[in-house]
């Protein structure tokens, strides 16, 4: 995994490709945004002059650690992720940290299709990790990206994905400071998998965590549920319906920062991704050994998502979200928190959906519009459509 900068212009016999090191462009910052060609001395220069062609695909050689590996770095990843820390090309990125507690998270992304309405795997891999940091109360500092590519992936698509990742990172103001690439044989992957790891800083004095959830807290949902999961399901083409549902894939750090700036006493947050809010609420209720009561009619669901779920016999509460979070605050602050959320573009459809109670510890109860109640169960696995 470790490489020295000087290996950049000589064939590397190692079986893996490590994008952490790359041709030294630190002294030639003016070329940073373009593939470095003329400046690279020696026999390799004429090769690098040829940008990959439109139909070129990832081959095992791209993972061989040699010149082709370097081209991936030079022509695809570096221009897309451009930042000064990456360009120091150290084995490990060195980051200056302000005071506070370090938060660290990691997540792998294997979504198919790689491009879907509202996002793509690369964007998702940045936002997802940023969101895990943000709901932990951390301010994101940097992320790493490890790409596993299947032999045969079009380089043009890889370039597009790398650019999407770079753009998403710039959008959230966080650099991709280190990375890695591996190529696996055709048939042994699914085009492209991405693992991102993120670190952030929880400033001194910020106290957000599950241990702060207590009876009497209000539970807020930052927006509509089920958009991402239903968009993916529709995009997979396995559905006998076509929909205009768009994934909610979005970074939440700004929305959460607005709550902090407003001085809201945040007790805890959770982004309900896989398994939807049913899973997230059950996990939390079980962890804190308190009961949750959710007013079902208050949970925001977009009409299109509701219709698609209805047609397919899928419970929207169990469907994944990628740009939403559950928020626990003292009841007295709930209205104010709601206003702050609703004033942000990503929180417009936010709602107060429930409360934390001493009763029925570990159990999530849904209150129906009829004044009845049901147990909201932890989904067993994938949402399976019912036939009856």
């Amino acid at each position: 995994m470790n490489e020295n900068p000087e290996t950049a212009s000589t064939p590397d016999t190692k079986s893996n490709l490590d994008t952490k090191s790359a041709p030294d462009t630190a002294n030639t910052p003016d070329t940073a945004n373009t593939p470095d060609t003329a400046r690279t001395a020696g026999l390799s220069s004429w090769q690098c002059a040829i940008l990959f062609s439109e139909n070129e695909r990832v081959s095992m050689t791209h993972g061989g650690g040699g010149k082709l590996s370097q081209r991936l770095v030079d022509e695809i990843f570096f221009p897309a992720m451009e930042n000064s820390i990456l360009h120091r090309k150290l084995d490990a990125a060195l980051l200056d940290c302000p005071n506070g507690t370090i938060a660290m998270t990691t997540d792998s992304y294997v979504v198919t299709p790689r491009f879907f309405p509202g996002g793509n795997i690369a964007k998702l891999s940045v936002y997802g990790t940023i969101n895990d940091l943000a709901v932990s109360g951390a301010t994101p500092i940097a992320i790493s990206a490890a790409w596993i590519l299947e032999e045969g992936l079009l380089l043009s698509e890889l370039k597009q994905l790398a650019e999407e990742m770079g753009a998403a990172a710039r959008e959230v103001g966080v650099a991709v400071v280190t990375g890695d690439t591996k190529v696996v044989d055709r048939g042994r992957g699914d085009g492209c998998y991405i693992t991102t790891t993120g670190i952030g800083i929880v400033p001194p004095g910020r106290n957000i965590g599950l241990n702060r959830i207590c009876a009497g807290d209000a539970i807020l949902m930052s927006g509509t549920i089920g958009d991402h999961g239903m968009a993916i399901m529709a995009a997979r083409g396995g559905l006998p319906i076509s929909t205009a549902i768009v994934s909610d894939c979005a970074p939440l750090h700004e929305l959460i920062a607005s709550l902090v700036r407003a001085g809201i006493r945040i007790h805890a947050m959770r982004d309900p991704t896989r398994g939807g809010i049913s899973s997230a609420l059950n996990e939390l209720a079980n962890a804190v050994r308190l009961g949750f009561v959710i007013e079902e009619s208050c949970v925001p669901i977009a009409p299109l998502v509701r219709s698609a779920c209805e047609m397919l016999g899928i419970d929207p509460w169990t469907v994944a979200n990628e740009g939403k979070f559950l928020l626990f605050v003292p009841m007295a602050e709930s209205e104010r928190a709601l206003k702050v959320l609703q004033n942000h573009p990503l929180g417009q459809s936010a709602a107060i959906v429930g409360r934390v109670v001493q009763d029925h510890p570990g159990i999530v109860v849904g209150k129906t519009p009829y004044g009845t109640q049901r147990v909201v169960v932890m989904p067993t696995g994938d949402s399976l459509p019912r036939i009856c």
Partner: protein
Amino acid sequence: MKHLQEYRDGDIADSIARSIHESTTRSWSIMEVCGGQTHSIMRYGIDQLIPKSIQLIHGPGCPVCVTPIETIDRAHAIAQQPKVILCTYGDMLRVPGSRGSLSGLKTQGCDVRTIYSPLQACQIARDNPNRSVVLFAIGFETTAPANAMAIKIAKTEKLKNFSVLVSHVLVPPAIEMIASDPTCRVDAFLAAGHVCAVTGYEAYHRLAETYRIPIVVTGFEPVDLLEGIRLAVLQLEKGQAFVENAYQRTVAAEGNPTAQGVLKEVFQVTDREWRGIGTILSSGYTLSEAFRDFDAEVRFPLEWKPVECTNCRAGDVLRGLLKPNQCAEFGKGCTPDSPLGAPMVSHEGACAAYYQFSQLSPKMNASR
């Protein structure tokens, strides 16, 4: 969807519930036949809106619950054959056979695919001419017409690599089996609305008269279910027993003649085993002579011995003779994570529904 909201309206539901309370003077047991109705009852807490003296009994109308273990094992065995793609509806995946569930087979490398429409199975067959595509055709009269269409298409297109494992069951014979049982505790039936949308409800008049039991064709939304219960209670309180249609926006007395035509062409009626209940005469479909070539049981003549868990009393639960929590295995050897019988599998299964509610504290049960 906007149209649907009327049938979920809280005020309308409330006024029907009040009317039921006013009409009820005695204890009644009403069986909702269809699993979809059970699902709505649990989902919306309909049982909490009606008088405590009315007991809702969850009927045998959950197709995955009544699919015999022998058929699931057969699907299992077929899916393990080389080059087979087994296509199934999603909620069948987790139902335990004697050798595990179909989802377990996926982990062993078998090609088991979830479909939303049987026509997808035809497409998979077209796309994979070198594979053998088997459609696991389960369900009541509701799913049967679509499965029949897929089989017709396969025949028209001469899709030689397409076959069906048929395990269709029919509702009226099951209602008759329950009604005719001397130990029957059911005072009235809520007939399955969507089944009647296909078959109509002419066949129910004889049952209502013979067994002196009210049958109300009922839908699936809260307002539909409450209206079905209300009409059933009114008949019971007046000592009447006839067929009524509380789901007129969907169901016509004669049903859907086009769907019936396709069913008649592709299938013929046969005796069927119902899981936990036993064989019911003339209670299912098998392929008709003209379509026998597409029968997966003929294409894959496999033999094995299924083993049913003897402690599971799902059959008694499905017939309304036993409450799930009265079963010795309930919550001990049998939980939603590791179900012994089908009613513990899906959330609307009677046993799973009871299990979820049993987790609530007694205090909360009292407060409702």
